[in-house]
């Protein structure tokens, strides 16, 4: 029994009709796909007693999610030989002939409260139903429902949680001829429904999600230095949490959300050169503890998922490299020895890898570093990458890069095989992928 693998480059612009697309949506191009992605056929869901487009709209989002993950090859709608909308109408032979491993069908039914969505997922080769699910939906939050379905399909077939219901925070800087405003945005992980959470005449830097996804910490330039804010995502209320005389930046949340590690330049008076070191701020007591004390520049702290140590950047060896130190104190151990510089480390969700920016012969590229083996692997071939951030399911890394003279976001799978460009007008910087959000929005 063979399944013919159709290798396709999917260069896709997501323009979805009928679903709310807020201003400044990111458009997503998949630039390289992976052989071995699971072939899946998705039949547009039936729309029963509902707006005739709603079923198709829903499945378009699901198809885009699965394709974008790089783990699936979604059969183009034009190749669908049949359009069953309930299990009794499925003829598995149709799908075997098309070389599909899996089939997803379903329906959307209008109810007094909104919609009822049902879907059925099949293993074509075994001619078996894998999953059947029914969930309520609202017209205004149809995309949220679609992403939930994508998560369930992904988990059923890949065996890991999907990251489709997550969000991305990022910063845009003013463009020539455009408004002179810096903006902090939150968008869905597929780039849709972007909304501005802060507009500022001055720079915004280093957004970081709290572990519960409810807050963002970030640095903002005020007067003559950066200060650190924590802002509630839902309400927009914010407060300054660090305002030392010198620099306050690079916030990193502890896994339990109670503390922030940050880079702070403590000056005793304005004329004091001060030094850049890592500090830890207890958000409840406001107690500030110094974590590193070294004449070199220390910045970009990151907490291990088990909460036991920080990694950070230090240039004590001459150029930035990554170091590790236990929260309980002790030795500051250098981790990276390859390349001219390594900077801005962040942990994979399972704590086994670091994503970082690796520079060698002038190229700045996203790399992953295996904490067990000490091996470093470069994932991109661009030249001015910045701020890599793991997806909360560990499958992909989003980062900022320079492409055709624009600053855009891009994503790469952890094995480096799937690459995507997410672009937007403006200069896009500092992407931060949210945690897996458990809110049932």
């Amino acid at each position, binding site marked *: 029994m063979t399944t013919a693998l159709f290798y396709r480059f999917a260069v896709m612009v997501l323009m979805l009709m009928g679903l709310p697309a807020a201003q400044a949506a990111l458009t997503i191009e998949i630039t390289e796909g992976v052989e071995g992605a699971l072939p899946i056929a998705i039949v547009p869901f039936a729309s029963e007693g509902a707006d005739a487009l709603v079923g198709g709209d829903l499945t378009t989002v699901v198809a885009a999610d699965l394709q974008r993950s790089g783990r699936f090859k979604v059969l183009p709608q034009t190749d669908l030989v049949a359009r069953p909308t309930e299990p009794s109408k499925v003829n598995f032979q149709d799908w075997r002939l098309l070389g599909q491993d899996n089939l997803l069908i379903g329906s959307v039914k209008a109810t007094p409260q909104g919609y009822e969505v049902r879907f059925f997922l099949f293993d074509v080769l075994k001619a078996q139903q894998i999953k059947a699910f029914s969930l309520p939906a609202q017209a205004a939050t149809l995309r949220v429902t679609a992403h939930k379905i994508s998560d369930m399909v992904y988990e059923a077939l890949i065996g890991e949680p999907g990251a489709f219901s997550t969000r991305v925070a990022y910063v845009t800087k*003013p463009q020539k001829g455009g408004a*002179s405003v810096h903006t902090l945005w939150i968008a869905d992980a597929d780039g849709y429904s972007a909304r501005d959470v802060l507009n500022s*005449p*001055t*720079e915004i*830097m*280093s957004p970081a999600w709290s572990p519960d996804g409810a807050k963002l910490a970030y640095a903002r*330039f*005020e*007067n*003559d*230095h*950066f200060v650190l804010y924590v802002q509630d995502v839902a309400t927009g209320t914010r407060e300054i949490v660090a305002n030392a005389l*010198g*620099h306050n*930046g*690079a916030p990193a949340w502890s896994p339990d959300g109670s503390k922030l590690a940050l*880079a702070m*330049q403590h000056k005793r008076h*304005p*004329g004091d*050169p*001060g030094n*850049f070191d890592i500090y830890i701020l207890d958000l409840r007591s406001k107690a500030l503890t110094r974590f590193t004390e070294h004449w070199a*520049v220390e*910045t*970009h702290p990151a907490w291990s998922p088990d909460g036991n140590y920080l990694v950070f*950047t230090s*240039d004590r060896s*001459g*150029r*930035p490299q990554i170091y590790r130190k236990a929260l309980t104190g002790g030795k500051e151990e250098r981790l990276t020895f390859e390349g*001219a*510089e390594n*900077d*801005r480390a962040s942990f994979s969700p399972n704590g086994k890898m670091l994503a970082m*920016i690796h*520079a060698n012969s*002038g190229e*700045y590229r996203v790399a992953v570093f295996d904490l067990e083996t000490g091996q470093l692997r470069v994932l991109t071939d661009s030249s*001015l990458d*910045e*701020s890599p951030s793991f997806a909360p399911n560990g499958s992909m890394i989003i980062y900022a890069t*320079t492409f055709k*003279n624009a600053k855009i976001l891009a994503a790469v799978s952890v094995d480096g095989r799937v690459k995507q460009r997410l672009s937007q007008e403006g200069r896009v*910087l*500092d992407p931060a992928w949210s945690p897996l959000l458990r809110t049932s929005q």
Partner: protein
Amino acid sequence: MRALKTIALLALPVVLLFGCQSTPEQPAAGKAPELAKPKTEAPATAKPDTGAGAGAATAIDASKGAKADAGATDKSAAPGALKNTIYFDFDRFDIKPEFREAVLAHAAFLTKNPNATVKIEGHCDERGTREYNIALGDRRATAVRQLLKLQGVADKQIATISFGEERPVALGHDEDSWWQNRRAVFAYR
């Protein structure tokens, strides 16, 4: 004494001209070598201070809402002959010999005018992370501060500010633009 000072001031432009000619860079051991690009343009002469002025003007526009003195550059407060921008090698913050005289000229002005204050801006090119570049920009501004203080300028006359890579004057992605962004700017109120 006064005559000597007058001669020194008159000689300044000449000194600046000689001080700005390109000198071959010797990268220090352990540092990434600079692209071998002769800087034939002496920023104070061939390239007018609009470079620094543009940087300061951008700072003013972008600082709307920030304190008024944050980016204000009242260039009429500083003698026109002074060069307001000096440049640095990649990843370095030491003041290069060819720019030393420029800094000393500002020191001379400041020591003669003890009520005058200057804000030193430190800037970087886009390579490296935004956060790390705040620190590098700060080191550049601080290096200028140290040299000014050595010449007798009072601490309270000097403020430093780092913009990291945030306020480039040149937007290209190669050394043609990068060298212009690796700078410290003297901004007088």
